[in-house]
């Protein structure tokens, strides 16, 4: 199950040391690495534009005025809505603040996709365990839609 993925030589002069890393760990790390970069760019670029311009789904001035309110009261006061689910940002993707939250979504879904990748390379016992983890993670994402409150 193990593959050679790394050869190190820093502490032993010119001697190469081979480290065996399991494919499921390697795939998990590789997917995570790529998606994290994408997520960070997707979060920072529109997020910085939003902070500089102050224009978005929620205007900067309004956010500053009410950011001391608890989340439910904030949304009722600012938008007159009760938030439960993801439509508050998914329905306003032309706004830079909501686009920035898409970056957070990419980051927050990164471990799930990494787990999918790892499962392909895992042995039977770990396929089951990682499969359970994936189901639990999917529950975290779809709970608001499934449970509706």
């Amino acid at each position, binding site marked *: 199950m193990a593959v050679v993925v790394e050869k190190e030589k820093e502490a032993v002069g010119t001697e190469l040391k081979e480290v065996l*890393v399991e494919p499921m760990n390697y795939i998990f790390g590789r997917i995570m690495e790529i998606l994290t970069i994408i997520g960070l760019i997707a979060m920072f670029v529109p997020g910085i534009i939003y902070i500089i311009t102050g224009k978005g789904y929620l205007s900067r001035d309004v956010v500053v005025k009410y*950011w001391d309110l608890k989340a439910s009261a904030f949304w009722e006061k600012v938008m007159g809505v009760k938030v439960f689910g993801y439509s508050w940002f998914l329905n306003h993707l032309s706004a830079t603040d909501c686009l920035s939250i898409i970056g957070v979504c990419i980051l927050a879904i990164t471990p799930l996709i990494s787990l999918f990748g790892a499962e392909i390379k895992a042995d039977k016992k770990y396929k089951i365990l990682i499969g359970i983890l994936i189901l639990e993670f999917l529950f975290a994402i779809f709970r608001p839609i499934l449970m509706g409150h």
Partner: protein
Amino acid sequence: MALFFMTLGIGIVAPIAGVGGGVLFTPLTMAFYPFSTDFIRGAGLVMAMTSALSSAPHFAKKGLANLRILAPVVVVSIIFSILGGIIGLWVTNAFPQGKSYIKIGLGLILFVVFLVYLFSKRVEFPEIRHIDPISEKLDIHGMWYEPSLGKVVEYKTTNLLYALPAFAGVGFIAGMFGLGAGWANVPVLNLVMGAPLKVATSTSMMIITINDAAACWVYMARGAMLAMIIVPSVLGITIGARIGARIAVKSRPKSIKYLVMAIMLFAAVMDIWKGLHGLGLAPPI
């Protein structure tokens, strides 16, 4: 801007002091900024998750962060992390003084973190005499190249059943208070399960990515995430951590560690005081 500079400072000192950024960000922001505790915890989770996501892949590819250790413990902790997020938001939104309860709770947790940093021992290479049957069946093992020894180190872990309740508690606290909780993961992995210190630290990062990401969805579904707070915070700590990591490689003065622990203690006192003031049990600061 103030938030950016605060998180930049946290990012610089955290690696030097050997603490996670989230454990400073959430209590300090609760103590000194006007934001709702909901938005602070949402930002704290994104911050802890992002920091862990930035370092975990490197450790996974080196063999230090290990899914064989992670999978059985996170199966339990992820559920408690989601539950922590749900209950944490319920407390602030269902009770008029909910945010005061959260502040007091966080202050108390911070005292525990302080004691953990002060007294808990770390064992570089724990000796394992007996491997429990479940760890044996799951074949929890790994290896990595240790430059300080100039050789490949192989290891196994044990006491999985004892570790599971601890990880359940850690997951709950992470979700409820918006923390990364590496301060709790590492001692459990190192001292209870017998994972070598480097493996424990690296696998803890991997655990944080999953626990905090799952809890993030709870906060997102409640609208408890504002780009206005998240972006400067994460940007600050991301830049700061890179500077801090470079300084930490060269020197790790003890004075910085003591300074950070003093700040942690101060934030704990402030959070508890503010919480008690919110309940009408203490005068304003």
